[in-house]
C-alpha cells in the first residue's frame, strides 16, 4: 500500500518535472541564445576595435566624439519631451472624452494614428512639414501667421522637435487609452465624496483622482522613457540624422556607424555606453513597481 503510493507520487513527480521542463525550455533557449548571447557579443564588439581584439579604443572614440555626446543628450531630450506631450495631450483628451456623448466610438476613432502602421504615419508628417508644398507652411502663410517658410525638417534648430512631435503624435492615442483605463478604475464613490466635501472639479482632479492612479501613471511613464530611448525609425525615415547631424540620437548613431561607417565596434560601444542610462531608468521602474 505504501509503496504503491510512493510510486504514484514518483510517477507524478517525473511527469511534473518533464512537462514543466519542456514547457519552459523554448523560452529559456530564446532567452539565452537570442538575448544573452547577443548581449555578450555586443560587449565583445564594444571592447575591441577593428584592429585589436581587446581594447578600449572604440569606447574612447565614442566618448570623445561630440556627435555621440550630442546624440546621447538629444536622446534624453527626446524621451522627456515625448512623454510630456503624450501625457498632457493624452490627459486632456481622456478627460474631455469622458464628458462627451458616444465616447466609446470616438475613442476607437482617435486610436487611428496608433492603429495605423508607424512608417506611413511618419510620412504623413513628412508631407505636412514640407517647406515647399507642406500644408502647415501653406496654412501659416495664407493666414498670415508667419512670413517666412518654416523648414521643419531642414532647419537644424527645430528639426529634432519636429521629429519628436511626429513621434508623440502617433503615440498620444495610446496614452489617451492608458489614461482612460486608469480613470475607469476609480470607483464612483470617490467623486461623490469629493462633491459632498465641496471640492471643485479641478481640486478633485488634482488632489483625489490623479493621486489615486499615481503608481499606474508613473509606471507607464517610465516605461515610455525606457522604450523610447531606443528610438530609431522616426529619425531614419524623416531626416536620416540630418540636417547637419542635428537629429542623431543613440539609435541612429549606432546604425550609421554599423551600416554606413562599417564599424561594428564603434556602434556597439555607442550602445554599451548608454547602458547606464537604461539601468537607471529600469531601477526607477522597479522602485515604483515596489510601491504598495
Amino acid at each position, binding site marked *: 500500500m505504501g509503496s504503491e503510493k510512493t510510486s504514484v507520487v514518483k510517477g507524478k513527480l517525473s511527469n511534473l518535472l518533464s512537462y*514543466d521542463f*519542456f*514547457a*519552459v525550455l523554448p*523560452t529559456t533557449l*530564446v532567452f539565452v541564445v*537570442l*538575448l544573452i548571447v*547577443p548581449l555578450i*557579443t*555586443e*560587449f565583445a*564588439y564594444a571592447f575591441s576595435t577593428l584592429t585589436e581584439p581587446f581594447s578600449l579604443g572604440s569606447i574612447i572614440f565614442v566618448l570623445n566624439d561630440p556627435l555621440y555626446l550630442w546624440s546621447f543628450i538629444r536622446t534624453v531630450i527626446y524621451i522627456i519631451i515625448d512623454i510630456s506631450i503624450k501625457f498632457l*495631450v493624452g490627459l*486632456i*483628451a481622456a*478627460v*474631455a472624452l469622458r*464628458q*462627451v456623448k458616444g465616447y466609446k466610438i470616438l475613442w*476607437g476613432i*482617435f*486610436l487611428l*494614428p496608433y*492603429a495605423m*502602421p*508607424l*512608417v*506611413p504615419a511618419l*510620412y*504623413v*508628417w*513628412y*508631407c505636412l512639414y*514640407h517647406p515647399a508644398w*507642406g*500644408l502647415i507652411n*501653406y496654412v501659416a502663410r495664407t493666414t498670415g501667421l508667419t512670413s517666412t517658410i518654416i523648414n521643419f525638417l531642414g532647419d537644424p534648430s527645430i528639426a529634432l522637435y519636429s521629429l519628436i512631435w511626429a513621434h508623440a*503624435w502617433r503615440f498620444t492615442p495610446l496614452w489617451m487609452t*492608458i489614461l482612460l*483605463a486608469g480613470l*475607469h*478604475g*476609480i470607483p464612483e464613490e470617490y467623486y461623490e465624496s469629493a462633491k459632498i466635501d465641496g471640492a471643485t*472639479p479641478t481640486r478633485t482632479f488634482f488632489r483625489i483622482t490623479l493621486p489615486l492612479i499615481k*503608481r499606474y501613471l508613473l509606471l507607464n511613464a517610465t516605461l515610455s522613457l525606457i*522604450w523610447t530611448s531606443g*528610438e*530609431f525609425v522616426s529619425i*531614419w*525615415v524623416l531626416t536620416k540624422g540630418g540636417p547637419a547631424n542635428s537629429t542623431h540620437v543613440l*539609435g541612429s548613431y*549606432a*546604425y550609421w556607424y554599423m551600416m554606413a561607417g562599417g564599424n561594428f565596434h564603434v556602434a*556597439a560601444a555607442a*550602445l554599451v555606453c548608454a547602458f547606464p542610462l*537604461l539601468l537607471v531608468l*529600469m531601477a526607477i*521602474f*522597479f522602485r515604483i513597481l515596489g510601491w504598495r
Partner: protein
Amino acid sequence: MEIRPEDLAKILAYVTVIIIGIIYLFPIFWAFLSAFKYEADIFNPAALIPTRLTLQNFFEPYFKPIFLQWIGNSFIVSAGATIIVILISVPAGHVLARARSKSYRLLSHILIFAYLFPSTFLIVGFTRLLGTLGLLNSYLGVILAYVAFNAPYVIYLVYSYMFAIPVELEEALLVDGYTKFDILKKLVFPLSFPVIVTGVLWTFMQSWNEVLYALVILNSPELMTAPIGMATLQPGESITPWGTLWAFSLVYSIPPLIVFYLLQQYYITGLMRGAIKAA
C-alpha cells in the same frame, strides 16, 4: 443667461474633442485621400477637397507588383513571429506562474527586465550572431529577432493573467488522471483566450511596424518588409510619386487596422485589468 460650471465644462469638452480630432485625424484623412488623387492634385492646396478622384495609383504602372510582395513579406514575418511567440509563451507563462518554490518574484523581475530592455540596444550583437549562424537576409533571421524581443512581454502578460485562474482547476484535473499536456490544451489555452488575443495583437503590431532589424537583416529587395521597401522608394526626392506611396500605405495599413479594430476590445480590457491591478 446663466451658465452653470457643468455646462461650461461640457462645452469645453466638446471644443477640445473637435480640436484634437482635427490635429489627430485630419492628417491621416488627408494622406489617405491622396491615394485617390492625381499626382498633381496632392500637394495643390486648391485641390484639398478634390474635384476628381482616381484609382490609378493602385494599378500599374504606379503600383508595382513588388509592393504586394513586400506586404506579403511583412505578413509572413509578423504571422510567423506571432505564432511562435504564442506557442512558447503560454506554456512558459503558465508554468512560471504556478512555480511555488524558489523566488518566483526573481523570475518575474527577470521577465520584466527582459521586456523593458529596448531592442535597439542589441542590434549589433544580435545581427552579428545571425551573421555567424548564416541567418542574415532570411525570413528566419527576422522572425527570430521578433520572437526574441516580443516573447518576454507576452510571457509576462500570460504570467500575470494566470494568477487569476485558480490552481484548483488544474489540480482537480490532475487528480482525475489527466496529463499536464492535456491540461494545457484543454484548460489553459481556452481560459487564457483574452490574454492570448492581447499577445497576438501585440506581437503582430510590433512586427508589422518594425524597421531597424528588418533594415539591417534583410538586403535583397524580394525579401524586404513593407516599411523598408517603402523607404527604398525614396520619397522626399521628387522621384517618387506620392500618390503611389499613399496607395501602397493604404494597402499596407489594412491588415493591422483590421486586426486592431477586431481585437481592440480585448486590448482595452487587458489594459483595464492592468489598470485595476496597479491602481
